């Protein structure tokens, strides 16, 4: 069975299908035992999930859990209303005359150390994705680096193409 057909069965089960296509799937189910078996499996899985989540209890006391939330709320509200005179930015403002030469020296030092470190490594991988999501995989044995991008075809399935996707 094609993957697309399997997804049709799922969409049928989930009620994500117009009525006309539902009847087509029902006609298909009438003669195809493989399709009926898969649909039945999906139904059983849904039935199992219908019992719901585990009933988890928060592993902290009410007061302790709340105290952290309350502290964070107060911290954020205090930060919004009062200029920070004790933080890093205030210190930097005072010492800005030294910031450029000292900062430049620090950056140069880091760059030298970084470059020396990388020159000894067999391979470095920098993946910068300008849009979408990516998954990187390195197979040393096969000598292959694979970068799997969720672009562009993922975004080629807008709603108005869903019908064509499901019901061709």
């Amino acid at each position, binding site marked *: 069975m094609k993957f697309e057909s399997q997804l049709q069965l799922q969409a049928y089960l989930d009620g994500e299908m117009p009525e006309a296509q539902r009847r087509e799937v029902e006609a298909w189910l009438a003669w195809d035992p493989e399709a009926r078996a898969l649909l039945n499996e999906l139904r059983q899985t849904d039935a199992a999930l219908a019992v719901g989540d585990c009933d988890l209890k928060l592993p902290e006391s009410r007061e302790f859990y709340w105290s952290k939330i309350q502290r964070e709320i107060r911290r954020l509200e205090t930060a919004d209303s009062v200029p920070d005179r004790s933080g890093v930015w205030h210190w930097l403002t005072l010492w800005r005359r030294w910031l450029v030469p000292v900062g430049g020296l620090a950056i140069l030092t880091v760059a030298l150390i970084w470059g020396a470190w990388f020159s000894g490594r067999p391979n470095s*991988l920098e993946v910068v994705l*300008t849009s979408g999501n990516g998954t990187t995989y390195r197979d040393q044995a096969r000598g292959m*680096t694979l970068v799997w*991008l969720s672009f562009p075809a993922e975004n*080629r399935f807008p709603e108005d193409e869903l019908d064509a996707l499901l019901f061709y």
Partner: protein
Amino acid sequence: MNARGILLKCLACVAVGGLALTSPAGLRAADLKLEAQLIWGTNESRSPNPKHKAVQAEIAKRLKDLPFKWSHYFEVNRQRFTVSAAETKRVQMSDECEITVRQAEDGQVELVLIGKGRRVGKVVQRLPRHELLVLGGNAPNFTAWFVVLRQAD
């Protein structure tokens, strides 16, 4: 001499020393000969496009060794080109897909993928001989595309 003067002198010494250490001639590569392939992955045994060819056996084996759902791979386009040290090479792989390749720092290769005129992603890494750099993504109708870059013989 005041503290500022001493600091600036130190900075200058470090800068000179750093340049001496980190600009080895060996890092400047010669021309790099590369091959890029645009490949289509599908479960269909035949491609509807008669211009598609069978993927080279070596590439096909490496792709099939991966646990992807596609059972067949077709070569849409293959381009061989040379990238010199100071150049960014732009290669059209299809109507909608192009790549740019340049030699980056530390012996690495920078590959930028452009889809429909928009930058999709950039990968920078070393590409030793016989290794593959593969970008992949989903294509319509649950197929997939791959751009495979490697050093050419």
